[in-house]
């Protein structure tokens, strides 16, 4: 054991540990750690199914410290962000959070993320990928300061039907009054915690933002507060199941950042990803606006949609066809799962026009590996509305005591 306590030189261990690593290490029954944005994070603690059911039926802790965070302030911060993202940041009130996407000049998506408005000209931008060069180049001509603060802030998602109860018991008096996409500062026994009613599960849930030095004690106190409410730590696999049900997109799974695509036609616009509701053409100029207007006028050649696939075999990576014979290829699946909660076989898929209209029927070419014998099935799939799963409790304020 003594050898394990010797600090490992950084060049031998390029992945960072999050401030919660000591707890994750103990709870991880599978020792299944995966890299995420330069950090070592848990893929699955026990089984993905067990953790998934905790999201939908109890409460969960998920370490989202590796989420890249930027502090953006200065007298032009609002104007700067309004030019950066496709939504109208002027409409975002102090103390609110907004889900946003941003594009390059050709209107192709670079990344999605959330903006937290901490003050009139003080914001936090959370992103999946590192963006500093794009953010700094976007700052040319603006009085704004952009600073990466990922390592300065530890973050935990507390998600699930009993999450509000647990946070109250943990000591966050009044947390039940937070509306969806609202944020507030709390004092948890001398430890400042910012809480936002946000998350990636489509369920009732909160995200806690704290100083790294308070990370372990807050984890312990939350675990103690959640003992009678089924609170458990979860890894990224379970979260991925929940986000598909919620219809949320995963970068590098459902789209590739336009900054990383190499081949022609692999980048996607927000309109093509079904995120047109995030694009506000009535606000002042923003990156990609002119290109998106052109695309809007000429119509979408492809669209990301939700699919309800017949049968119960997840359509992972399936090619999609207009005909059962599989002669006319019209798209492919980007994410797929059998949804235990919806009892439906779900998928997110990119489909060519005109097959992306709600109600359209396409055929999914599903390959099944049955003890090393591959079987192929051509299964009907139907374009349906997203999200697939949207319980009332995700919006209810105050949430019911569970």
């Amino acid at each position, binding site marked *: 054991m003594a050898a394990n306590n010797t600090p490992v030189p950084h060049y031998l261990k390029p992945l960072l540990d999050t401030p919660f690593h000591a707890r994750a290490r103990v709870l991880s029954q599978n020792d299944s750690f995966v890299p995420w944005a330069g950090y070592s994070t848990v893929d699955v603690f026990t089984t993905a199914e067990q953790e998934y059911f905790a999201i939908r039926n109890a409460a969960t802790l998920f370490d989202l410290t590796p989420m890249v965070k930027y502090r953006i302030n200065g007298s032009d911060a609002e*104007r700067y962000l309004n*030019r*950066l993202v496709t939504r109208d940041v002027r409409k975002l009130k102090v103390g609110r959070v907004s889900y946003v996407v941003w594009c*390059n*000049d050709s209107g192709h998506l670079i990344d999605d993320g959330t903006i937290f408005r901490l003050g009139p000209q003080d914001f936090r931008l959370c992103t999946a990928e590192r963006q500093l060069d*794009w953010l700094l*180049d*976007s700052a*040319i*001509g*603006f009085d704004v300061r952009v600073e990466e603060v990922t390592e300065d802030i530890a973050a935990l998602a507390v998600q699930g039907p009993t999450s509000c109860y647990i946070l109250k018991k943990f000591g966050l008096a009044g947390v039940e009054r937070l509306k969806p996409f609202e944020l507030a500062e709390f004092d948890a026994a001398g430890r400042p915690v910012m809480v936002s009613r946000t998350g990636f599960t489509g369920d009732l849930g909160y995200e806690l933002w704290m100083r790294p030095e308070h990370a372990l004690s807050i984890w312990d106190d939350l675990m103690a507060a959640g003992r009678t409410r089924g609170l458990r730590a979860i890894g990224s696999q379970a979260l991925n199941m929940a986000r598909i049900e919620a219809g949320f997109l995963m970068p590098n799974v459902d789209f590739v950042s336009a900054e990383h695509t190499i081949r022609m036609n692999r980048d996607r616009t927000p309109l093509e990803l079904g995120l047109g509701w995030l694009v506000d053409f009535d606000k*002042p*100029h923003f*990156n*990609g*606006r*002119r290109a998106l207007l052109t695309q809007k006028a000429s119509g979408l050649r492809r669209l990301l949609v939700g699919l309800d696939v017949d049968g119960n075999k997840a359509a992972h990576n399936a090619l999609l066809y207009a005909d059962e014979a599989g002669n006319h290829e019209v798209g492919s699946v980007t994410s797929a799962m059998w949804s235990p909660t919806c009892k439906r076989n779900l998928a997110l898929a990119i489909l060519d026009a005109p097959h992306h209209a709600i109600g359209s029927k396409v055929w999914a070419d599903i390959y099944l590996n049955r003890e090393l014998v591959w079987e192929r099935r051509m299964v009907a799939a139907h374009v349906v509305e997203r999200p697939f799963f949207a319980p009332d409790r995700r919006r209810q304020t105050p949430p019911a005591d569970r």
Partner: protein
Amino acid sequence: MTSPTPTSIVARYDVIVIGAGHNGLVCATTLARAGRSVLVVEAAAEVGGMAITRAFAPGYRVSACAHLLHQMPLALVRDLSLAEHGLEFAATGLPTTSLGADGATLQLATGGTPSAAFSPNDAAAWPAYHARLGRFASLLHGMLAAPAPRLGTEGWSDKLALAKVGLKLRLLGRRDMREFLRIVGMNAYDLLEDEFKAPLLKGALAFDAVLGTNFGPRAPGTVLSLLYRLAAESAAGSSPLAQPRGGLGALTAALARSAKAAGVTIRTNAPVAQITVAGDRATGVVLANGTEIAADRVVSSVNAKTTFLNLLGTEHLDTGFVRRVDHIRSRGIVAKLHLALDRAPAFTGVARDALGGRLLVSPSLDYLERAFNPTKYSQFSAAPALEITVPTINDPALAPAGHHVLSAIVQYAPYAITGGWTEPSRRAFTDAILATLEAQAPGIGASVVGCELLTPLDLEQEFHSAGGHWHHGDLALDQFYMVRPVPGATQYATPMAGLYLCGASCHPGGGVMGLAGRNAAVRMLEKGA
């Protein structure tokens, strides 16, 4: 010329041209002759931009930037009736004399032919070299008077223009095409070493390859800048190296008269504070005094950086485009020294008739490269290379009787030097230039009665050119033709509807050529302006 109106006025023009330099005036005149109502707004008190003549010491006048005219097409001069509007030449077809360290000189007549007496070897090599570069330059010169094609479009006009360039290249024939492709990305140093022996000749020829660039003669791409200069001179179609009577300001004064005759309104002392935008379209300008002027289209002869980053504002542009604009290399490298002299300078080995021409202090390739070296470390040249004219030899009216003006283009003077352009560093640089002059013209220091040094920083402040760059950005392979000033703003249109560019930032670039202004106007009219 009217003075600025202090209050808001309701005026509306078809086109507002920002900047009354030669390109702005050519653009304005071309548009006005096509029936458009055109207003030119100029920040300075006089028209002319960087092509002006002004006093630098009491009684002494000089062309403040460029001091010779060698690239403006004769066809353009005729078309704009500049002679009728008062343009006269004090001298044309000026010779170039390359000054050596030891009093040796080499005279290059118009067309550049070195005298056989100087170096029989080089005189023999000259005709083939000159003819070959002439053919290559003519390949480029057809490109100057038309918009550069855009890359990556489906447009037939773009593809056709590219195909034409390819065809012209192919029509050079196998040997010439190979040779062109071999040397076009090469450096002038190696090319001239291959061809010639005499250091004075090589130094003088290399000077033209690096004039106005952030390059020494060993930098790749300097053959291209040499060919480009030759192309512009051959496109000019007259005897190059001319001296307008009254300096370069006389040219722009004639351009302004031609513009007014065509119906253009010119307002001086009218700096633009902002290009106005409504509904994602440029709608006019706001002057520094608050006056708003509306127009259907705005065309800026100001450099691309200032136009987009300052006058328009980055909030109206996409990040990728702004990034490209911000990366335009436009740090000036050329300084200007003006001397008022109480007698004619006497350059060793230079006869009186040659004194009226162009004198170069670039006695060898290594001298020029050594002059460049310090710029890499943010220092000015300790022994700079010079292009000297004594305009009063041909045009005595620029100075009091019997007195003279010396105008020197000085390379290299970085825009930003270590410690900044302070009084001591300006003094030290002036001394270095004067020492270089003294070696060529002993006693000249004692005849100096007035002196003005313009560093790139001074040029930026006086002429509003970002970085103080004479050409609004280096003319190099990565800022040339199809990518000048940046992709997304080629062909004089910009991402902002209603806003155009017509200055030296655009193809075909800097030099007192006027083609950027002419091309821009033609393009705007084609596109329905």
